[in-house]
């Protein structure tokens, strides 16, 4: 049998605060090297860390949304090791008494349980050059929430789904933009194999350098296969850290793991215990927005949307908000959903827009769709009207008036056209009389063509059939 993959993830989330976790330097990306540093985050002798309130807020928001137990009193700790990107050669993190414990996140119909979430500071960045190493400490001290899952994941795909669900939640909570490319979301994975049901798991391998969600999936799949192959061949596996080479599609050894990494954790004496007020916690909980998973369920159950549409809408809180605003103006959830997951999303992607900045208000989009629902505008026509609304910032009414694309629904205007078409096509009329009722559709088509496709098709059909029946 195929051995079972037993996978856990360690995800680092860079919290969306204005300043770093222990100093008041700006927490920003892309600044010129070493321009966002101070004695504290540089680790200069004599400088002391002071905790950023907002980092705690955001971590609590995340922990509560994930159903964690929050410790009202948690402690920071020093994790000691030497590395060039670590200014003090110890990281300030949380060890024995983390801020949050437990928690869970759903992926599809599975629930992945969490071990803990804690706060810690980020290291600087190292750039290798030929002869030496360059250090940029802009990122040193950025506030991180580390999420550790229990080893509940069973495949690379599940890991990818977990990260997607997490990213969606992070965005909905406004805690982090979840962008792996930018580095605001980083993931290490641990994988071991269980050779047979009930057997012990094999040695754990840690995977690093997983820079994209696809990369996470590919790396885990590759590593699982590598381990299975070795297992089948009777070759030993060792606990180690391996990197992922995306270009070559393989993992490579970075370092062996010693029996235990000797970090010599002890409570951080420069920071008093982190005490969370019960009232504050309650108010953060009350202020939580609707969680994407709950919203998705609600769309399916209460609004009757299909799972795919619901999932797409819930990818971004702004998109969901746009959709919900449309439904308030037009009571047809499906039509709105199709429109938002279709036109609106497409235009957002083309123009790299966030739905919150979409140039057409949901009310106007709804007004346009109302014309379609009322049968006065074809869907195709609506799309081109919408395009002009987007391009020129027009309201639905103005765009429609301009395009003059309203369906002709006036009997008085259509009747002469029908008469003319019937008069011009006496053979087809005779065919119809002879019993070939299908010809009516061809005649309806001729009337539609004569009106440039702008006649109300149902009305035209009615008039044509009536005229044919009359004669």
């Amino acid at each position, binding site marked *: 049998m195929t051995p079972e993959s037993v996978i856990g993830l360690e995800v680092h989330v860079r919290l969306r605060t204005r300043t770093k976790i222990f100093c008041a*330097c700006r927490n920003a990306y892309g600044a010129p*090297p070493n321009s966002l540093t101070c004695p504290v985050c540089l680790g200069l002798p004599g400088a002391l860390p*002071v905790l950023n*309130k907002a980092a705690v807020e955001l971590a609590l928001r995340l922990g509560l949304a994930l159903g964690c137990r929050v410790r009202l009193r948690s402690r920071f700790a020093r994790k000691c090791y*030497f590395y060039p990107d670590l200014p003090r*050669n110890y990281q300030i993190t949380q060890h024995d008494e983390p801020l949050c414990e437990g928690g869970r996140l759903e992926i599809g119909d599975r629930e992945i349980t969490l071990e803990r979430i804690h706060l810690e500071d980020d290291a600087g960045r190292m750039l290798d050059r030929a002869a030496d*190493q360059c250090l940029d400490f802009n990122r040193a001290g950025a506030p991180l929430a580390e999420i550790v899952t229990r080893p509940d994941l069973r495949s690379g795909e599940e890991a990818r789904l977990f990260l997607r669900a997490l990213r969606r939640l992070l965005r909905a909570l406004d805690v982090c933009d979840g962008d792996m490319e930018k580095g605001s979301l980083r993931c290490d994975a641990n994988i071991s194999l269980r050779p047979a049901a009930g057997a012990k798991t094999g040695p754990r391998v840690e995977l690093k350098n997983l820079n994209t969600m696809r990369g996470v999936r590919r790396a885990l799949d590759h590593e699982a296969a590598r381990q299975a192959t070795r297992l089948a061949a009777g070759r030993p596996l060792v606990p180690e850290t391996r990197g992922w080479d995306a270009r070559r599609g393989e993992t490579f050894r970075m370092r062996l793991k010693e029996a235990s990494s000797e970090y010599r954790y002890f409570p951080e004496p420069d*920071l008093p215990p982190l005490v969370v007020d019960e009232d504050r916690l309650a108010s953060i909980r009350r202020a939580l927005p609707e969680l994407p998973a709950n919203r998705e369920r609600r769309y399916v159950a209460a609004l009757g949307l299909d799972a795919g549409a619901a999932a797409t809408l819930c990818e971004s809180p702004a998109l969901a908000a746009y959709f919900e605003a449309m439904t308030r103006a037009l009571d047809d959830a499906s039509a709105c959903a199709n429109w938002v997951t279709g036109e609106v999303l497409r235009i957002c992607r083309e123009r790299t827009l966030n739905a919150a900045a979409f140039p057409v208000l949901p009310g106007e989009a709804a007004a346009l769709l109302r014309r379609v629902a009322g049968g006065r505008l074809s869907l195709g026509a609506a799309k081109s009207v919408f395009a002009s609304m987007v391009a020129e910032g027009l309201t639905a009414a103005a765009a429609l008036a301009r395009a003059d694309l309203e369906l002709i629904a006036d009997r008085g205007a259509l009747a002469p056209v029908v008469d003319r078409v019937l008069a011009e096509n006496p053979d087809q009329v005779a065919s119809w009389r002879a019993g070939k009722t299908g010809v009516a559709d061809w005649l309806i088509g001729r009337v539609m063509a004569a009106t440039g496709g702008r006649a109300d098709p149902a009305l035209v059909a009615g008039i044509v059939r009536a005229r044919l029946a009359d004669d």
Partner: protein
Amino acid sequence: MDAELIRRLETLAGLSCAPDEREALSRDLRGIVAFADRLAAFVEEDAPAGGPDDPHRADTVGVRADRPRPSLPRADALSGAAATDGDHVLTPPLRAGGGR
């Protein structure tokens, strides 16, 4: 507390001592650790762990608002570094000959 243990501790502590220095240090530490062993007699196992937890210490606020303040000018930040390229601090590579 022998030279072998000291060598392991040196690696963890980012130190590297000459053999005679290591011998001397191991002697010193043996004496100090033997002294520290007195703690065993005094402390009961069920005494609470952790540092002092005095009531007056609940007075510390210890957190700050999320308001940015000016960072150090880069020249100041790099002013103590033995090697820079103007923008970055430079150090030798992790592995001899470069690369990771």
